């Protein structure tokens, strides 16, 4: 007896099954088309939904010919699970695609170099730009990072390095904080800062609101990163007679440096697109505001810009800004992946 020594991976999907599924899929499309022709059904999405339902029913009937009920159900469940995965992935593709297609035409140098100062609200969308919004977002997010990072790291250090009595409570609070609706963070900053010591709307007020939304992400991601630090490193440092603060400051945190950077980037990506809290903190402005002036003057931001352009029915400008915003967020996201991969490789 000759024995093939090539390794094989046994599969549950056989070619004949795949062929049958393709055939059934075609049949489902035809049946649905007929149904749409002869009954008052309409709508593209409705077609897809009905075609899928017909497909599932036909497929089940087909496999039931050759399998017992359990296997037919198993087959049906697999199909449904694959459809779920497609339904999750599809919006991502559609959203990014729509934003690119609709946003690209309005993208010009003007968009990055001009503001809307003195631009008539009904002017063509190519007039003026979003420089004030871009600088506003960068300023607000920058301040938010400065405010959040120390607290985020301290929280993470508390959760991992100090086995305190309140570790559980702090973790619960940080988790609860991550569930705060962004609009509530905005209202809070409005109540505590804007109508109080802040004397009115300002870019800095927006930074405070963003900090609240960013802190949980930074703290919990940093915590995860600190947990990855090899415990023997800590013990080695303590065994050398180093005090705890030196161990944390000179061994643990530097080891997790790349991880902490990842945490901060993820935090930034989480808040860069926040809109709701800006409505009652930054409020919006048509000029570029310097970082120093951002403490007491209203300021624009990319999300705010999009929202306000939509309100004025300037859709093209809104789409272009959306493209810039999604580009920024995806860039940050990829950057975070890259940094964390490097950190893990080390």
């Amino acid at each position: 007896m000759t024995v093939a020594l090539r390794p094989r991976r046994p599969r549950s999907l056989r070619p004949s099954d795949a062929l049958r599924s393709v055939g059934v899929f075609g049949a489902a499309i035809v049946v649905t088309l007929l149904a749409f022709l002869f009954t008052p059904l309409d709508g593209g999405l409705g077609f897809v939904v009905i075609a899928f339902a017909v497909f599932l029913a036909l497929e089940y009937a087909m496999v039931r010919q050759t399998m017992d009920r359990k296997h037919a159900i198993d087959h049906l469940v697999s199909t449904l699970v694959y459809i779920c995965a497609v339904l999750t992935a599809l919006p991502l593709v559609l959203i990014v695609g729509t934003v690119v297609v609709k946003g690209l035409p309005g993208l010009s140098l003007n968009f990055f170099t001009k503001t809307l100062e003195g631009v008539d609200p009904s002017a063509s969308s190519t007039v003026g730009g979003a420089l004030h919004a871009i600088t506003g977002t960068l300023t607000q997010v920058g301040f938010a990072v400065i405010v959040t990072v120390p607290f985020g790291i301290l929280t993470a250090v508390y959760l991992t390095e100090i086995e305190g009595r309140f570790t559980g409570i702090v973790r619960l609070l940080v988790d609860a904080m991550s569930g705060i609706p962004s609009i509530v963070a905005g209202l809070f900053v409005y109540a505590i800062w804007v109508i109080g010591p802040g004397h009115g709307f300002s870019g800095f007020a927006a930074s405070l609101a963003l900090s609240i939304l960013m802190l949980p992400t930074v703290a919990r991601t940093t915590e995860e990163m600190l947990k990855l630090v090899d415990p023997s490193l800590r013990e080695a440092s303590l065994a050398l007679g180093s005090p705890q603060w030196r161990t944390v400051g000179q061994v643990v945190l530097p080891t997790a440096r790349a991880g902490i950077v990842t945490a901060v980037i993820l935090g930034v990506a989480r808040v860069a697109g926040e809109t709701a809290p800006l409505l009652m903190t930054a409020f919006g402005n048509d000029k570029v505001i310097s970082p120093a002036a951002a403490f007491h003057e209203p300021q624009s931001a990319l999300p705010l810009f999009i929202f306000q352009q939509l309100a004025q029915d300037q859709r093209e400008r809104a789409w272009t800004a959306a493209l810039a915003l999604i580009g920024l967020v995806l860039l940050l996201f990829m950057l975070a992946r890259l940094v964390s991969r490097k950190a893990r490789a080390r």
Partner: protein
Amino acid sequence: MTAVMQPGMDHVDLAPADADIALRAIGVSCWFGKRKVLEGVDLAIARHSVVALIGPSGCGKSTFLRTLNRMHELVPGASLAGSVELDGTDIYGSELRPSEVRKRVGMVFQKPNPFPAMTIRENVLAGLKLTGSKTSEPNELVEWALTRASLWTEVRDRLDTPGGSLSGGQQQRLCIARSLAIKPDVLLMDEPCSALDPTSTRRVEETIGEVSEEVTIVIVTHNMQQAQRVSDTCAFFLAEENQPGRIVEFGATEQVFSNPVDPRTNDYVNGRFG
């Protein structure tokens, strides 16, 4: 004594008719990713016999066991070559689905794993539920399976308590009952006693003796005495350094232990390594 000779192993002289072979492995090799862990295993398992697979850790005997009911492929990156015939049909061919194979070739694991959310009764009947089989007399089946697994007298009054409330040895016998309830042809046991104390081990071994009257049993064990006590035939696996595992010797248990052909078998069964 029933065992079969394979090409290249000319010291076994027992050749049963094909009809008496429950399970036959032909040239089975296994890989995890690029690493080959098992090479060219030929083994014929006679119906209603107890076959012990012995050998040092890492020699591929558990891997081989898992190829016999298609559990091997569940490990990510696992692949294999060769074939395994169940009553003459290749279980890796297109006639059988993995679940049909596993229904006929049951398995008991190293650590007892009764389903935690189910009662004792539900655990015994879990296989029926999972395979979509029906029985008109569930109570009789539960009693039959638990009696076969020598557990009935201990649990008859608390069938509706969680399976996790039993002791380790009882849990393992519950797992045996669970496997028996779907009436498999072959039962694979992967070091079923390694997590148990000596008394429980003894009970499980008695159970194996009882059960072997109706099912074929393939058992992986590290315990030489256990292999001697429970098995009719014995296969010795060995992996030389950086080499995939192979069968070094296969024969009647008595012979493998008292008068092995290969000197390495002799060293191993007498505790000189492994």
